[in-house]
Every structure is written in C-alpha cells, then in structure tokens.
C-alpha cells in the first residue's frame, strides 16, 4: 500500500525495544555456543545430536544449518510469538492503539503494517542465525566445498546461496507464526497473554505433529514441513517438499490473516 513510512517507524519500534534486542542476542548466542561446543569437544558421532552437527568440523557453513535446525522448533517461534503477541495487544494495553486509529490509521493498514513488521523481524532473526553461524563457522572450522545431503558437493559460494534460500524458507514458515500471533494479539489487551497463547499454540501443533495416530492430519499442520528446507540441500534441489510446505503455510496465512482482519476491523477499542 505504498506506505513505507509507517512500516519503517513500526519496524524501528520493534527493533528499539530492549527486550527484542535481548531475544536476538540469545539467538546469536545459541549459535555461537553450538560452534564453541563442537570446537571444544570435537566432531559428533553418527546419529548423535541434531542433523548436520556431524558435518560442522568438515565445513563451518554447517554451523548455520545446525543452528537453524536447533532454533527452528522452539527458539525462533518463541521469539516471533513474543513480537507478534505484542503487536496489537501491546498497543491496546498502553492505549496507543486509540491514538494510532484517530491519526487516522486505517485498521486494515495498521494490521498489515504490524504483520509485515513481525514478518520482517522473523526474517531478521533467521538471517541473524545464518550469518552468525557462517561467521563463527568460518572462524572456528575449515570452509570450502559443501557436501550436500545427496553426497555431492557444491562450491562455498553456491553453499552460501543455498543458506540464503534456507533462511528465506525459515522466514516464510515463521511468517505463519507471525500471522497466528497477530491474530491472537487482536483478541486481547494483555500482550503477555497473546505471547503465551501463540507460543503454546505452536508447541501444541508440534506435539500433534508428533502423534502418530494423527498422521492423516500431519501434512496439513503448519509445523509439519518446517524442516523441508533440507530439500534445498539436495542435488538437484527438490521443490516438491518445499512447495508443499509453502502451500500449507500460505493456506494457514490466508485463514489467520483474514481472521485477524475480521477481528481487527470490528473490535471496539475501549482501552
């Protein structure tokens, strides 16, 4: 909607928040810790620890992939839950929502800007983990040709390109958490409640995804294809899994965003 000014203001507001800076710092810290731990204790044995852990000592770039695998189930969704849960409910609880609305900011426009700023924050978080991993990996471990899941190798530059693709995919799946969080955030004036509800909902879906009796449901859970970014590390790149993942995310996004919109545009702002 050609409205970079408000989006920039909104994104800077999110970034300036001390708590959000701490969250980003913790994400970077997790990545550094994995690198240091592997450096100190040597390579992991087969089948031990998260995927790619074994490969870090071969190529430092795998630190990025390992850190993303480690952060994706809990840390990253948690960070996005916090920021998205805050988005509307935070403004409602401080009362700033009413002043934004009387500026006037159209409710749909405000919702879009809030959602985009959280999506951008998720992208930032994913890119941060990837970049910190790549840098720390390059410092602590050898770098060079990257051995893919298919057993073949690609150049380091090509590896960086694929890492960028993985970070984008992670940001895309985090966008669904963002949409969920923003929707929950429109329902309440208590930001903590919105954050907790969003994080719990994500964990709940992850648990459902792990219950074998519900396997018929699994392909339609938004967390099911989170690790499909592995398809970017095959030779040739496989698109079926990624495509399905993105399609499922898009379906959830559509439902959650329209829900948030319906709530946002009909809500009485009495805070």
């Amino acid at each position, binding site marked *: 909607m050609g*409205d970079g*000014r*408000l989006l*920039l*203001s909104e994104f800077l*507001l999110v970034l*300036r*928040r*001390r708590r959000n800076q701490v969250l980003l710092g913790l994400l970077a810290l997790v990545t550094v810790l994995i690198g240091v731990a592997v450096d100190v204790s040597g390579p992991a044995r087969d089948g031990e620890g998260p995927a790619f852990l074994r490969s870090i000592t071969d190529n430092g770039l795998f630190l990025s992939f390992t850190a993303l695998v480690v952060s994706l189930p809990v840390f990253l969704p948690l960070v996005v839950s916090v920021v998205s849960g805050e988005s509307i409910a935070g403004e409602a609880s*401080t*009362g*700033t929502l*009413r*002043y*934004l*609305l*009387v*500026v*006037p*900011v*159209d409710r749909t426009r405000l919702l879009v800007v809030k959602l985009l700023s959280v999506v951008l924050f998720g992208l930032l978080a994913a890119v941060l983990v990837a970049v910190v991993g790549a840098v720390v990996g390059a410092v602590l471990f050898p770098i060079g040709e990257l051995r893919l899941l298919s057993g073949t190798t690609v150049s380091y530059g090509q590896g960086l390109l694929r890492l960028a693709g993985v970070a984008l995919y992670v940001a895309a799946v985090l966008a669904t958490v963002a949409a969920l969080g923003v929707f929950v955030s429109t329902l309440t004036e208590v930001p903590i409640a919105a954050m907790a509800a969003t994080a719990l909902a994500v964990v709940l879906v992850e648990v459902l995804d792990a219950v074998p009796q519900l396997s018929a449901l699994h392909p339609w859970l938004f967390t099911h294809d989170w690790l499909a970014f592995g398809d970017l590390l095959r030779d040739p790149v496989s698109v079926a899994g990624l495509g399905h993942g993105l399609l499922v995310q898009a379906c959830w996004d559509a439902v959650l965003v329209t829900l948030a919109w319906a709530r946002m545009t*009909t809500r*009485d*702002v*009495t805070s």
Partner: protein
Amino acid sequence: MGPSTEGAAVTTRGLTKRFRGGQVAVDRLDLDVPPGAVYGFLGPNGSGKTTTIRMLLGLVSPTAGTARLLGQPVPAASASVLPRVGALVEGPAFHPYLSGRANLRRLDAADRTTAPRTSAARTAAALERVGLSAAAGKRYRVYSLGMRQRLGLAAALLRPRDLLVLDEPTNGLDPQGTREVRTLVREVAADGTTVLVSTHLLAEVEQICSHVGVMSAGRLVAAGTLAEVTAGATTRVRVECRQPAVAVTVLTGLGVSPVRTEAGTVDAELATADPEQVLAALVAAGAGVRQFVLARARLEDLFVELTGAGFDVRG
C-alpha cells in the same frame, strides 16, 4: 436533518452504545456542536462522555444512530475527516520507552496526509506549543502526569485542526498548566477551530466555553449556549441586615421564599421577582439592609440540579 445542523462541527442523531453485557453507556444521544464553538461536554463519572467521543472518533462502533464530524458521516468517512480532527481521549497514551519527540514522530509517520520532510518541524512546533521543548528528549516513562498530558495535547495539535476533541485535558495539570490549556483552547478557538472539551472543572467551563451540554446516565439532559443553559437556573439573593425577621416577612410577602436564615443574613431564590423591587421593599420596611448581593446561578449548582447530588456513580 434540519437546516439548523448544516455545517455543524459535530452532530449525532439517536446515537446509542450498548456494550456487550447489556450496559447502555450512551442512550439515543442527539448532540449538536455548532462550528466555532467551544463546547463544554459535562456529566458525572460514567455518564457516557468518553464513550460518545470514542464513537465520534470511530474507536467504538455505535449500536444505533448516526454521527457526523465536520459534516461528514463517521465512521464511513473517518479516513478523510479525522486528519482534520485532533483528539485527546481519556488521558494521554504513548510508548513508555520512546522519548516524547520520538512518540510524536511516530504519530506523524502514521499520518499519510502529511509531508515526511516537514515532520521534524511539525513535532518541534507542537512540543513548543505545549511547553515541552526542554523535555522532548526524555523517555515518556519518566514524564510527570502533567508532562504526559501536555504531550497528549501536542499530539492533538500536531497539525492545524478544524475540530479538537479533548477528553479531560486538564487532568493532572498544575494550576499553571490548567491556565495554559485554557489559553491554548482560546487560541485555537480564535483561529476558528471548534473545540469539544469534556471536563469536570466547571469553573474552567464558565471561563472558556461558549456552549455546554450536560450528560447524565447516557442522555443529554441540557444543551445550548452557556447563557441559555444557565438562564434556566434561578438567581439567588443574599441580604445582610439588622432585622432578618423583617426581611423574611418582606421576602415572603413578595413571593420570594427564603431558603436559609443565619445570624444577620437571609438567602433566597429570586425566581421571577425583580431584584430592584425587592431591594426597595426591604429598605421601605426598615430591615436595615447593609448588603444586597445578587448571585447568578453557578454552573455547579445547575450541574448538581440536573444530574443529582448523589455521590455514587451509575452502575
């Protein structure tokens, strides 16, 4: 809609808000704020003033009825009319960890109808106007109550407005601040801006308002120019004299019922009697009048008369 409401700054017809849970906060309200007026929007706690203002600004959707701001229907035309309206709703609210200036910049950035390049100048001017220039860089969190109120006013005055809606703008201000708000309202009114101000400081209203409307239990119980509204109330007379008993007899004879008699003074409500005749009669009867004071009805008395004297707020 009659021709009398053409060009009105605010008009509502049958405006009603029933909250979920059944609470009727505003009940078939017909409000008319003429252009250029300084309209005192009065009423006891919980009478529905803030809810009315929220409906005017599109924050709360009315259960029934219509509202127009500056001639345009709201909330349908909110997007085009609200940039011309400055508002302070139920106290200021800003991001605590941003400075006053940064908070204003954020609100300015949210307004698509302003030029980004002049944003800094606009915020500086607004801060200057409310006397916050020195504290502009401080975080809102450390602002005192009065500074917060001023910042809220600054936000309402970020750009020239045709209508200012101020919900209790003097809440928490020191006498100095209260006076400044009064001056400010007079200034903007002099520029032709209509002001709708809700307040509990009736003395302020008497000083600055041209019109008043009194809410009670969600309904408008009195409305009009300040003179019209107060004219309905009775004038009082206070007679200080040597012979109070004589004075009482005279007053009763003239159909003026004394309300109170104390050592040497008699209070009475004058109703329709002519004060000059009353004084002449008192003197002629030899009541020994030392002082004869006419007190025009005070808004406070009227207010209590209209909305009841009880202390409890309506449920």
